């Protein structure tokens, strides 16, 4: 098989299908193999949900608290934000480095119009200190605007109380109500 047929779209798809098939078969093959070897003792204890002895509480299809989703969503936003920071930060770092190096070259050779040639073979990729400065400045402004807008949203949800694990009730509880609640909790065995 020569190199051209190996990189044709059909060949690529065929490889993909091959890998997927082997991967799927591997899982079921292992399960099947285990079925032949493992002992089969269907006692009542063995069929428990948690074989280790932990008693199961309630059905498995419980409804998760909505607050978990809110936290997950917020986490997602800030995670994506960090991912978006990286390219800008890389450019900022590269630009400031290029500028510093260009400045040093200018000092050492005393040539005020020195330019830093990143790639010696190609004049088109040369970057001047002014360009490096512009690049760093623009990336900083970009990042600042992006982050500022995001922070406004963050401050809003904070103010709105979405970050409170225990949501504030609309009417603050009176001290009598709070005491009653604390008493109830203590009776239920919660440390207060």
């Amino acid at each position: 098989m020569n190199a051209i047929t190996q990189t044709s779209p059909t060949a690529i798809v065929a490889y993909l299908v091959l890998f997927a098939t082997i991967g799927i078969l591997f899982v079921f093959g292992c399960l099947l193999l285990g079925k032949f070897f493992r002992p089969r003792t269907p006692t009542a204890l063995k069929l428990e949900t948690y074989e280790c002895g932990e008693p199961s509480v309630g059905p498995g299809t419980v409804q998760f608290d909505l607050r978990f989703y809110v936290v997950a969503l917020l986490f997602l936003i800030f995670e994506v934000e960090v991912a978006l920071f990286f390219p800008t930060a890389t450019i900022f770092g590269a630009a400031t480095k290029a500028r510093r190096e260009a400045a040093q070259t200018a000092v050492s050779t005393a040539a005020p119009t020195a330019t830093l040639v990143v790639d010696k073979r190609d004049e088109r990729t040369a970057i001047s200190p002014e360009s490096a400065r512009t690049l760093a400045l623009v990336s900083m402004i970009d990042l600042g605007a992006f982050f500022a807008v995001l922070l406004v949203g963050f401050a809003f949800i904070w103010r709105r109380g979405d970050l409170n694990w225990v949501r504030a009730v609309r009417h603050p509880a009176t001290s009598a109500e709070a005491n009653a609640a604390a008493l109830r909790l203590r009776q239920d065995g919660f440390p207060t």
Partner: protein
Amino acid sequence: MNFNELLQDVVQKDTLASLRAVQPELTLCATIIAILLAKILIPAWKQSPFHLTVIGLATAMFVGFPWHGSAAAAVSTLAQPIFTASLVSDSFTTVVRFFLLTFAMLFAAFAEISTDGEDDRTEFYVLILGALVGMCLMISANHVLIVLLGVEMASVPCYVLAGLKRRQSKSSEAALKYAVFGAGAAGVMMFGLSLLAGGLGTAHLPAMAANLAKMIQGGISPQQITILSLGGLMVMVGVGFKLSAVPFHFWAPDVFEGATAEVAAFLSVASKAAALGLLMRLCSAFAFPADMYFHSPIGELLPQASLIAALAPVRQYIVAIVAVLAAVTCTFGNLAAYGQTNMKRLLAYSTIAHAGYMMMPVAAAVALIRVGSDGVSVDGARDAVASLVTYISIYLFMNLAAFAIVAFLRNATGSEEIADYAGLVRRSPGLTVCMAIVMFSLVGLPPLAGFQAKWVMFYSLIEAAHVCPALWALLSVGLLNTILSLFYYLRVVRVMALSPEPLYREAPTIPLTSMVGMYCGLLTAPMLLLFFALDRVLPWAHAAASTLF
């Protein structure tokens, strides 16, 4: 051009000019931030941020006003690719954006009148403004990524808006259905766009068309045709979802029923207008990639006329898809509206049917690009686009008025069933007359604006049918549907005017002199005014069309 010059060009020329061109969008963003900041900094401020919204929208309308003075002069200075040609700011953007902002202004007033003292006002206005920014991106998209970004930015706030009534299970159900359907459609659209971008070697829409033209001239293989046409179909899935075109309309009736009438009005008008703008953009990019949509002139790549001549099969493909979708959407929407007992579901199907009508001029515009021995003729295509823009401008008032009356009647009677509207003419004659005018206008009967909208649209379709005979079928479908739609629209009017009042319902008295009545009157007046003063809208519409083709 070396790196330094490129950087200086992007930072100093392109970005500054671009920021100037997107002032209305920036104003909307600033308004959103101002509303949020106001809520953060002034916790005691319990009122709805209606005033801030109105100030923001008014500023956006002012800075984005299509032109000061003569139309022709403004158009020539307006057309420019911005943000390194990922967006395009031309008269189509400006005019459609102005319509969207006008609608948003009327809509904000409607939302403020019909709902009072609810907690979620801040979120409501912020989401509305956010969706508006996305819609502005949709109508000015010139790049695959912006198409996707615009569609998502316009859709995601709408999912939340649909579920704003958290205590009602129907509202939550609507939001979930909408979100799931939207995610699926966006996924398919993304797949299609990646197929197109991969197959054509670029993600810049007009450059994609130029590459496609080169491929067609150099002989295109059947595999490439398969991939590209598949990509085109998949993109139409995404656009069809936004347009609620059949067969991607399933979300519309459920979402309209579950969401409040206010949100339904927003989805029915703004979302649809933006989707039509996007469809028009995509069609124009692939059917007629004009020089001005490139960052640098494409003359060096290929002479304009031969490029457009080479794209003839692409135009046939676009016309076929859009025409078939339009015919099916229109017919299905009208037929399904018959069985509805809920007013919002009826209006949802009416919206679907109107999406079908509004896709017809798109097909006509693409069909009307003629390449002869004496060059390219686009006059007919411009007329067709102008008819679409006219339709959008009239539809804006019609549908907002319909939903506004539904919302006001809901506030008064607590019901959105058509049967509960019985005999309203006795207690609220003014409102009933408004509703009747709106319904007649939706059918397209003279002397109302809906007639003018349909007239210019069908006229451009007749012009197109002379070029492409298959469009006679589309024209007849459109005319037949207009007659079909007569019956279910008039059923509403009949129930309101002729049926006896039900005993269990206290008939609400909504006089025309009340705030609500005056608002309805304000929205209904354009139905009559625009019929006689259509020549006030037509220059705008023609200016909008003049840069697209």
